[in-house]
């Protein structure tokens, strides 16, 4: 899963520049709330044709957290 695609989806939801989305960026610091987070997860599911389980949501704080969850899903598949 590339940071590029994830960053593009996050930037679209956060209405910010793609280069502002860094692995260490906290979603809150990008102005993203809970509805934004589930919108991003929806977009990622659509983009990668995957199912992201609800249980992962509480542990998502940074962009890197999302990348890690996607990586785990990928290796489990």
């Amino acid at each position, binding site marked *: 899963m590339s940071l590029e695609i994830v960053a593009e989806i996050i930037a679209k939801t956060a*209405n910010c520049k793609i280069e502002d989305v860094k692995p260490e960026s906290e979603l809150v610091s990008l102005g993203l709330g809970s*509805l934004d987070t*589930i*919108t991003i*997860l*929806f977009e990622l*599911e*659509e983009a990668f044709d995957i199912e992201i389980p609800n249980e992962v949501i509480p542990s998502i704080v940074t962009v890197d957290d999302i990348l890690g969850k996607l990586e785990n899903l990928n290796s489990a598949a």
Partner: protein
Amino acid sequence: MTNRRVMITGLGAISGLGLDLTGFWDALKSGRSAIKPLDPLFDGVKISLGATVPNFDPESYFSSSELTLLDRYSQLAVIAAQEAVNDAGLIYGENTLVDAATIIGSGCGAKHTDEATYEQLYKQKRTRAHPLTIPKGMPSAAASMVSLHLGTRGPAFGLASACASGSHAIIQGMTMIQSGMIDVALVGASDAPFTYGLLKSWDALRVASDDTCRPFCENRSGLVLGEGAGMLVLESEEHARDRSAKIYAELAGGGMTSDAGHITRPNILGITNAMEKALHHANLYPDDIDYINAHGTGTIINDATETEAINRVFGTYAKDLAVSSTKSMHGHALGASSALELIATALAIHHKTIPPTANFTVADEVCDLDYVPNGSRQQEIRAAMSNSFAFGGLNAVIALKQYAW
């Protein structure tokens, strides 16, 4: 604190007649109809006419992040509510607005949102619904979004009674002020019915005209759908006077009944009782009324039944009344129509001008009242009524009075 008088101190309107109240009233008083061919037409839909909001660019009102949470009917509601609040001279963050109630009716709710999601699921066979479908599409979404955008923190809820939703919302706000529960209410209704699924459903009812909307005429052929929102600021007399507010008219009373009969056919007793109750509640006699803004959909049965009901309630005085249907101009915007029509009635009193029934040809033989055909009329209006008779037999009639300081 009981039975306080209620004033209309702010108005907002977005409709087929224009993006604001000025456009709305300019068109009404000149008898200009917003009904025109739908552009583009909907594939496979018989309905070809509508009164859609012209030159509407949501992005000129809202940021892209705001729009992600705003169905079209919520957009229209927020725009009209903002105009009504500005018109009333209320300011964001001040106590008067913060404490206000927000009661927003709708006939069909957030169809754009629901249909977009269902189209993806049913037709495109996608496996996921967009996560904002629920908060954007819930029937109370407009009430929440108006509250959120305007900072109103008093009682807030959505209200549904089909094409009388606006009238019921207005009466609800009025009674809450009369009772002393609140001082100020932001009330009205919004509808945006131009979606594929809803138009197909209206097709199936076979009540839409492919000519135009000609209420009370012998060649009337049905209703024409419209979209829009009408919002009003209501205020107790004392509160309005304390801040020297502009007063359009006194909201004098409301009458509400249910036919408990047929799901679509109007019932003469139900609508007669609603008009009589409105007069009684407003402490008015029939010959105090100078103007009735009719429900006047342009369907064969509504216009005949409404005319008969007016004759029953007003007796021989019915012939001295001016009766017009402004649906001939703003179309039938479902629940929003009832709010837009009350705004038209308040403006008629305020400007001493009765808006006409547009597109008028020759009156039907069973429609024997003065329908103010095609041209507006300059006239003092001491008191007026606005009729709304919804599918399902839900009737709401509102009486307004001229108010002098």
